[in-house]
């Protein structure tokens, strides 16, 4: 049931996806259990994403995916359409992420909280990008 990219290159997946996405949460769990306990862990988990911090993670993964797609364009003539769409998605997504980072910072400066729908979309986009980055990597490394 594991995705093919996880079986093909678990080391790549661990370094490029698990480290930026999950390692901070593992450290938060370690700090929470060492200081306050598991109840604090949930609060710290919420605090760690409720200002839209995940947009920085998404932006990094979009940039890496875009680079993988760009560098594979000449190498994979059969995948030109898919690579073009991936490249376009990465550029548009990066613009949106940058806007959200600026928007959330501006709202924080004015003492406003980030909208919950924005936080949920950032969590959803992080999950989508974790899968998409790995899929694009595995797709272009085969040609």
């Amino acid at each position, binding site marked *: 049931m594991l995705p093919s990219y996880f079986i093909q290159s678990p080391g790549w997946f661990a370094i490029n996806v698990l480290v930026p996405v999950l390692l901070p949460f593992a450290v938060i769990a370690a700090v929470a259990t060492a200081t306050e306990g598991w109840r604090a862990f949930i609060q710290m988990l919420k605090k760690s994403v409720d200002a839209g911090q995940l947009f920085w993670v998404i932006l990094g993964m979009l940039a890496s995916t875009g680079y993988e797609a760009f560098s594979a364009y000449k190498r994979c003539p059969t995948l030109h359409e898919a690579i073009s769409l991936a490249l376009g*998605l990465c550029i548009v*997504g990066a613009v949106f992420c940058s806007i*959200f980072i600026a928007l959330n910072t*501006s709202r924080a400066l004015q003492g406003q909280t980030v909208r919950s*729908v924005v936080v949920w979309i950032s969590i959803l*986009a992080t999950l989508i990008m974790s899968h998409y980055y790995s899929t*694009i990597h595995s*797709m272009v490394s085969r040609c």
Partner: protein
Amino acid sequence: MRKFFSRLILSDRFSDVLAYLFGIIMIVGVVGTMMLASH
């Protein structure tokens, strides 16, 4: 102009609309890439 941008950036509806748009673009882009790659 500055007042307009300030009001726009701080408006909840603008944030929500932008978030939904981003979510839709991500889902359509990812599904589209997978469909194109499988052909």
